[in-house]
């Protein structure tokens, strides 16, 4: 099982930053689609997209055709674990396959979150085959505006 280390340092940090900016721009032209930055680490499922706004971190995964009771999601203050399995219709002698590209099986993924979160304030939604996990940023991780006082 691979644990994704969150790091802004290292040789790719600059690339990551540039990609992030480009991606943000690309999103402005909605409907043109985006391509992933990371080449997937082998043995890792599902692929994740992580976004954030002022209050929350959002983790999304494409998991088409999954039973929600087969999903287990756990969060701590800085990690997120997604466990589950995807069942395929069992094949029988009556059926002959022409193409079989869809895959079933179990999966487990643990990631380090980019910021501290409050795991008590987390929710997961499954819609149109996309899992969306929303976790509130922890209060202390949020930027505070510092008022400047005149003398």
């Amino acid at each position, binding site marked *: 099982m691979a644990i994704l280390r969150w790091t802004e340092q290292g040789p790719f940090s600059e690339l990551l930053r540039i990609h*992030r900016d480009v991606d943000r721009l690309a999103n402005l032209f909605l*409907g043109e689609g985006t391509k992933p930055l990371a080449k997937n680490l082998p043995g890792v499922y599902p692929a994740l997209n992580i976004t954030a706004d002022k209050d929350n971190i959002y983790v999304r995964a494409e998991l088409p055709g999954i039973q929600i009771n087969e999903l287990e999601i756990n969060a701590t203050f800085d990690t997120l674990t997604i466990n589950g*399995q995807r069942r395929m219709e*069992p094949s029988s002698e009556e*059926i*002959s396959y*022409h193409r079989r590209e869809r895959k079933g099986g179990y*999966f487990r993924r643990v990631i380090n979150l980019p910021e501290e979160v409050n795991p008590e304030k987390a929710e997961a939604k499954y819609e149109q085959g996309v899992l969306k996990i929303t976790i509130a940023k922890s209060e202390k991780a949020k930027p505070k505006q510092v008022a400047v006082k005149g003398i």
Partner: protein
Amino acid sequence: MVQQELTTTEKKSVEKPEPEETKKGFFYQQVVDIFETKEALFLVADMPGVSNANVEIDLKDNQLTLTGRISSYYSENEIPLYSEYGIGDYVRQFTLADSIAQDKITAEMKDGVLKLVLPKIDRAKAKKIEVK
């Protein structure tokens, strides 16, 4: 079925698949299963992020085109931090055999999975031949 651990396969993208497509950019290809029983052909396609209303099934001269449009994937204030998969519209074309009863095709979309049932014309259904 033996359970195995899933690994991610990168989504396959294609540049403008048809000349009549005017949209800019690229499309992703749906991952599909195609299987056959005595009565019908089944096509199951994964298109996560596509709602029922945004699926288009087009049949012309034995060419079956499955299109899925993505809409409002992210909300406006979200800033991408990390991305392992791309998001975009889906399209894939298939050529149907003459043995399909084209007017009887049915489709169902659930949880990002499109399931098409393509019944065979009676003439094409395999008859079991008893050996006496």
